């Protein structure tokens, strides 16, 4: 890969210290995500895929190893510096939607922009535009509890886009949705990739998105077992004959 990577993980380990037991969740992870790529992380539950996503998204820090963001080592940064990176460069979409329950849709989308020092008027305008583009124009004053799962997830996507980040991370975004709504959410993500050239990393079991994805990372027991470049239409088969690149 000649172009500079957006995120690069170098020999990353994540070990949890539980009382007397050591639990290794991630081991020897080497990974590169290039700008504009659409990466799918797949694996059985407990394989460490969510932890991997959290480390990519600076929500969690590795026990060992290094992370580079656009070539800059960010492994040793403070919590606040990581918060700044999350605010500026990364948008999250969660399985549980994770909207702030006391804020309405508009305010939820406006919220991340506070940390970028955007003025209220501009925040409001931008949030409205985002919500309208996701077909939520009529829902801007509703609280999350008054919305369907699909609507909540689209608001979460709008929020993830609020600060115009380069990287969108989605952790099983369709896990709590029925298949039709799930498909709609996936299409939204695919559209973001196609039309706005966002870099997207999705943790999913969804074969539909895997079908679209250009790169599938299979993870098992904390190790990447395959990094599968799907240049053409390939359905994820779970086979382990894919080439290892690191």
């Amino acid at each position, binding site marked *: 890969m000649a172009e500079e990577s957006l995120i690069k993980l170098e020999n990353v380990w994540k070990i949890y210290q539980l009382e007397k037991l050591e639990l290794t969740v991630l081991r020897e992870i080497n990974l590169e995500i290039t700008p504009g790529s659409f990466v799918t992380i797949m694996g059985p539950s407990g394989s460490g895929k969510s*932890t991997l996503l*959290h480390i990519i*998204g600076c*929500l*969690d820090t590795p026990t060992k190893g290094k992370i580079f963001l656009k070539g800059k080592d960010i492994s040793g940064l403070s*919590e*606040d510096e990581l*918060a*700044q990176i*999350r*605010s*500026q460069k990364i948008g*999250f979409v*969660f399985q549980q939607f*994770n*909207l*702030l*329950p*006391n*804020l309405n849709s508009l305010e939820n989308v406006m*919220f*991340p922009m*506070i*940390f*970028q*020092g955007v003025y*209220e008027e501009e925040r409001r305008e931008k949030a409205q535009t985002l919500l309208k583009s996701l077909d939520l124009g009529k829902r801007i004053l509703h609280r999350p509890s008054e919305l369907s799962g699909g609507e909540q997830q689209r608001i979460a996507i709008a*929020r993830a886009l*609020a*600060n115009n980040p380069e990287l969108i991370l989605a952790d099983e975004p369709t896990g709590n949705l029925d298949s039709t709504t799930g498909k709609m959410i996936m299409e939204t993500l695919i559209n973001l990739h196609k039309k706005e050239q966002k870099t997207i990393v999705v943790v999913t079991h969804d074969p539909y998105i895997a079908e679209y994805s250009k790169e599938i990372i299979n993870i098992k027991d904390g190790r990447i077992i395959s990094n599968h470049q799907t240049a053409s239409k390939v359905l994820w088969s779970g086979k382990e004959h894919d080439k290892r690149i690191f």
Partner: protein
Amino acid sequence: MIKEYFKISLRNLRTRPMRSWLTIIGIVIGIFLIISLLSLSEGIKSAMLQQLRMMGKDLVMIMPGELSDILTTFIGGLKLTEDDLKAIEKAEGVNLVVPMSWKGEVMRYKGKTKTILIYGVPLKESKEIFKTDIGWDLAEGRWPIVGKREIIVGDLVPKDIFPGMKIETQAYIKGKQFEVVGILKSLGSKQDDSMVALDLDIFREITGERKDAQFAFAKVGPGFETEEVVENIKDQLQETRKRKRGEDLPSFTVLSNEKMGGIVNDIMSLIQVAIFSIASIAIVVGGIGIMNTMYTSVHERTREIGIMKAVGAKNKTIVNIFLIESGIVGLIGGIGGVGLGIGLAKMIEFSLSSQGTFYLKASASPQILIFGLGFSFLLGCLSGFFPARRAAKFKPVDALRYE
């Protein structure tokens, strides 16, 4: 950004109105207690000091009995004898002695009868001292002529006690007829403004009191230090009592005006400290209430904290949001407490003044208001500090995973 945090904090408080209000009431009670008591004691202090301030600096006060049981002195009827008064007069540096006596007597005016405090003052010798050093000033009329049955009355007498009393009219004390010749301007204390003053000789004549006094002023002569004269008077009094009565430890209180002010100030400050420490207990309880609520809130909102962090909130932001929340609780509690506290103090002032027993002005100075509000806001922030810090310490992933 602070504005946004304020909005979020308010929103959070409003989602749990019951709990917020209960916590606020906890603060209201503490602040209410402290403000009402402080306001009253501050009022008493300023009334007392005000009175002392009206008097000249070169006056020495002499009272029988120890200062520590001053109340016993007044109620128990300890007196300065004629010998004592003479001894004071002999002390070096004393220019003039002004004995004062008082007694409650029945007074009749235009068919109305009331019990009133009658002051006997030696008008002949000391009219000037009363005018210049003690601050007696006529609003209308003139001073009584020595030897004649004439009285002057305090400012409140024609207002409250005998409404419509005028000069050059007749009043009766113990059945004897007196002419009202003058009305004084306010002396700053309800007690003093409600009295009737007449010449000491006539006072003794009608009340049957002997030639002693409950209280005396001594005016310091030119060229003498007040504190020095205080010591001279003490020495003279002790010597006289030893000689005449064989008392070993005669008890007197001899004080300069300045010292008196200092003592009043000290006593009142001590009382205020005591009040403050007792009321602090209520405030600490209120603070613990805030802390408890905030810990519960942090616990319940762990996931929200995780979400906020995930979308870019720094630790400081989380601390600020929670601190503002607890600060608002404190401030609202403070507003309620200050309002109720001043209200109660004013009510006590009003009920006391309508009874006419004791003169008191509840102080509602800006200092007390600012203190009350500032203190409660600070209390809120302080109590919210540890919960807020705990909230900020959550790792984003852990907080997000929290159910």
